[in-house]
C-alpha cells in the first residue's frame, strides 16, 4: 500500500474521530450546568410535577402520533408502492418539499387551514375545535411524522421481491391477505424503522406546535378533560416547549435538564433501533 493511501486512511479516521468528539463535546460541555453550585440538580426539575407532566405529554403524544401515522401511512405506502412511476416521483417531490419546510411555516399553514380553510368547515361540521387544544399537538406532530414515515414505509415495500406477492396470490390469497400475511412480515425491519423515525420526528416537533397550539401551562384546569388529567398531561406543555420557557425566563439549569432529558430519550431510541440491527438513514 502506498504512503499516500496509508495517510489517507489515517486522515479519514481522524475525521470521524473529530466528528464524534465534537458532537460528544456539544453535549458533554453542558453537564456542569446540571450541577450548579449551591443549587439543586438540574434546577430541581426532577421534583417538579410539571416537568413530569411535560415528559409524559411528549412521550404519549409522540407515541399516539406514531401510531396514527402508522395506521394511515402503512396502507397508503402500500398503495403507493403498487402504483405507476409517476406516482412515485410525485411522492418523492411532495414529501421532500413538506419535510424541508420550516416549522413555523408548518404551524402557520395549519392555522390557515384550520381557521380559514376547508378544515374550518370540517371542524364546524364535527363540532370540534383543534387549534389551541391538546389534540392540536397531535395534528401538528402528525404532519411531519407521517411524511417521514411514508418515505420509510414506501422504501420498505419497494425493496420486497415482487414475486412474493404474486406467488401468494397464485396460492389463493387475495390482495389483502397477500399484504397482511406476506408483504408486511417480510418488510418488518423497514416498517419498524419507519415507525421509530416517525416517533422521533414527533418528539422533535416544537415550532409548529408553538404556533398552532401555543402554550398550555397558563390555562385553567377546567379546560382539560378527565382523560388528560388521568394521563397527567393537563396544563402541561411539550417538554421542548417547557424547555424554551425555562430558558426564556433565565432558568438555565432547569432548561438544560429538560434538554438532557429530551436528548437522552432520543439517543436511547436510536441506540435501541441499532441494537435490533436497523439503521436510521436520512432525515
Amino acid at each position, binding site marked *: 500500500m502506498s504512503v499516500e493511501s496509508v495517510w489517507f486512511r489515517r486522515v479519514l479516521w481522524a475525521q470521524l474521530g473529530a466528528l464524534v468528539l465534537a458532537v460528544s463535546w456539544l453535549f458533554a460541555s453542558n453537564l456542569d450546568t446540571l450541577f450548579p453550585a449551591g443549587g439543586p440538580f438540574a434546577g430541581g426539575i426532577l421534583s417538579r410535577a410539571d416537568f413530569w407532566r411535560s415528559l409524559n405529554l411528549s412521550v404519549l403524544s409522540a407515541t399516539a402520533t406514531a401510531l396514527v401515522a402508522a395506521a394511515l401511512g402503512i396502507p397508503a405506502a402500500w398503495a403507493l408502492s403498487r402504483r405507476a412511476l409517476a406516482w412515485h416521483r410525485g411522492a418523492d417531490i411532495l414529501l421532500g418539499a413538506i419535510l424541508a419546510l420550516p416549522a413555523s411555516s408548518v404551524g402557520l399553514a395549519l392555522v390557515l387551514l384550520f381557521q380559514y380553510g376547508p378544515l374550518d368547515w370540517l371542524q364546524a361540521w364535527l363540532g370540534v375545535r383543534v387549534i389551541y387544544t391538546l389534540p392540536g399537538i397531535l395534528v401538528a406532530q402528525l404532519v411531519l411524522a407521517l411524511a417521514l414515515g411514508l418515505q420509510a414505509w414506501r422504501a420498505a415495500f419497494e425493496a420486497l421481491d415482487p414475486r412474493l406477492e*404474486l406467488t401468494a396470490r397464485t*396460492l*389463493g390469497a387475495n390482495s389483502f391477505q397477500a399484504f397482511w400475511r406476506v408483504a408486511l412480515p417480510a418488510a418488518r425491519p423497514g416498517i419498524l424503522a419507519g415507525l421509530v423515525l416517525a416517533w422521533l420526528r414527533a418528539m422533535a416537533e416544537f415550532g409548529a406546535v408553538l404556533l398552532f397550539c401555543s402554550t398550555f401551562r397558563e390555562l385553567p384546569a377546567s379546560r382539560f378533560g378527565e382523560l388528560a388529567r388521568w394521563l397527567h398531561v393537563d396544563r402541561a406543555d411539550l417538554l421542548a416547549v417547557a424547555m424554551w420557557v425555562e430558558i426564556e425566563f433565565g432558568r438555565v439549569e432547569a432548561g438544560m435538564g429538560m434538554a438532557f432529558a429530551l436528548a437522552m430519550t432520543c439517543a436511547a431510541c436510536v441506540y435501541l433501533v441499532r441494537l435490533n440491527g436497523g439503521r436510521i438513514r436520512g432525515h
Partner: protein
Amino acid sequence: MVTESPVRMEGVSVEVGAFRLREVSLDVRPGEYLVVLGPTGCGKTVLLETLLGLHPPVEGRILLGGRDAAGRLPEERDLGYIPQDYALFPTMTVRRNLAFGPEIRGWSRQQVCSRVEELLELLGIAHLAERHPAHLSGGEKQRVAMGRALAVHPRTLILDEPLSALDSSRRSELAGELRGLQRRLEGSFLHVCHDLDEALHLADRMAVMREGRLVQVGTPEEVLMRPTDGFVARFTGNPNVFTIRSASPNQVVLEDGTVLVCSGPSHASAVAIRPENLTLLASEEEPEGASVLEGRVKSVVRRALALEVQVLRSPGDTRWTLLVPHGRRIAAGDRVRFAVRPEAVWRLAGEGASAS
C-alpha cells in the same frame, strides 16, 4: 369423456412495455411436460405472467380447464407457480410456507397438517421443516417451492426457469427429480427456459419461442430433426443451415453451387443438416448414394462428447460443422472429405441461412 386441456392459449397477443406476445397458440395436454424454449428477452416471462392473469390479452383468449379465463384474477386461476428465484416467504419456516395455500383456502387444521406431512415426505424435505428459507440451499429451495405450489392440487404447474439459479452440477440431478415428480403426480407442467439441454431432458413436447411468437411446437425429436426454419435449427444446436438456389424433387443446389442428393418438396428455401449426420471420410472412400464434399478445416474445438470441426468450402467460404469422435487426428488447415447422406438433408420452408 373428453379430457380438457388444463391450459390452452388461442391466438393470444399482449403488449407489456417493450415485450409482446404475438398470436400465441399453445395447448398443454393433460399429464404432459411442455417446455417453452427461447432466448432471453423473447417474451417467455410475459407468456407466464399473462397465463397467471397479470396482463389481459388484447387479442385471443385463454382457456383454463375448458373455461375462458378472462377477468379471472391470479388467485382464482388454480395455477401453481414456481418463480425464478423461488420467492419463498422469508419470515416463515418451510412448514408454514407449505401450509400457506391450504390455510388461505380455509382447510381444517387436520387437513392442513396432513397435507404438509405428505408434501414433506414426497419431496424428501422432512428434515428441513422448521428451517427458514435463508438457511436453505438452491436445490432445497426448489423443492420447498414445488411443495408449496403443489399443496393445493393445482391443475397445472408453471415453472419459470427453475434450474437457472443452480450450478450446473446440480442441474442435471434436479432436472431428473422434476421429471420424476411430474410422472408420479401425472400432472401437467409448463416449464420455461433458455437452455436447450434442459429442454431436451425434460420435455414431452417443446415450443420454440422467438420475439413473442411460437415458431414451432412439437416433440423434441420433431424440433431437432425437422425444424420449421433456420432459427429453430440454429437454436437447437444445428448451425448447418444453407439457402438453396434451386430445388427439384431429387436434389437441391445450394447458393454456392453445391449439389446435394436428397428428396423433398420443391418449394423449400433452405436446408438444415445436423452435424452428427455428416461423416468424415478417409481419402479414398466413396459411399453409395451420398453426396461427397470437400473442404479445408478452419478450427477444431474439443467438446465434452466429440470434436467440433468447422470446415470451409469454396466458393464463398461456406462453413460446415461436423462432429468427429475424440481421437481422430485432425487439425486446422487439413483438407478433408465428408459425406452427406440424402436422409440427413432436411428442407426448410422458412427463413434461410442469412443472419437474423
